[in-house]
């Protein structure tokens, strides 16, 4: 069973991302949205990227652009940008959803 993890808060102010990382298993999907987009430059991001061979990591493009969060430097193999409609699709391609907000 895979989980879709929705990261909605910045790890600079909350513990949510750290807690999420401890609950990630193989084939899970992780999406950065809302203030979760700011995590791109957080030290914990490295832990997520290290897991990139076992998970898929996404960022909601509009939410990142709204915040001037630039993810161009990160390889598409590590981080994919998606639309809200694609987020809906991910909801159904995983078995359950946890919102870290």
């Amino acid at each position: 069973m895979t989980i879709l993890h929705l990261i909605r808060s910045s790890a600079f102010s909350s513990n949510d991302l750290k807690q999420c990382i401890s609950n990630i298993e193989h084939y899970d999907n992780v999406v950065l949205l809302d203030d979760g987009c700011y995590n791109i430059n957080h030290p914990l991001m490295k832990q997520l990227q290290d897991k990139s061979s076992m998970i898929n990591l996404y960022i909601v493009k509009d939410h990142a652009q709204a915040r001037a969060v630039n993810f161009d430097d990160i390889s598409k193999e590590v981080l994919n940008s998606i639309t809200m409609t694609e987020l809906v699709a991910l909801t159904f391609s995983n078995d359950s959803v946890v919102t870290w907000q």
Partner: protein
Amino acid sequence: MQTLAVMVTTPPHSNLTTTAIDYIECAIQKGIKVIGVFFYQDGVLNASSYLSLPNDEYQSIKQWQRLNKEYDLPLHICVTAGEKRGLTDEIDDQTGKKTQTNINDAFILSGLGELVELSSKADRVVQL
């Protein structure tokens, strides 16, 4: 057809609520049956009929009303969470009928049992 239930816990003036609205609309347009939205915690504040948001700001209340009307989307607010935040219904002395005095017509006062029912029917439950 895939079915979805959404629990909203954020207030009407929060951009997180905008995200929830976008997400729900994208789901509907993708052909997913959204069987209901359940408002809990500060989410119930979305249902206040006294909301007044400046015209140049995002009108979350109008969006909820539109989703409710255009797509018959059921919007349930948790009665206990509502009462704690001053949202309630009253029994009209004249007609004996319940009136949702300060709750927008697009929303329905429901018990937590409604969330259990939505959860038991939906393929996915998402908390936003």
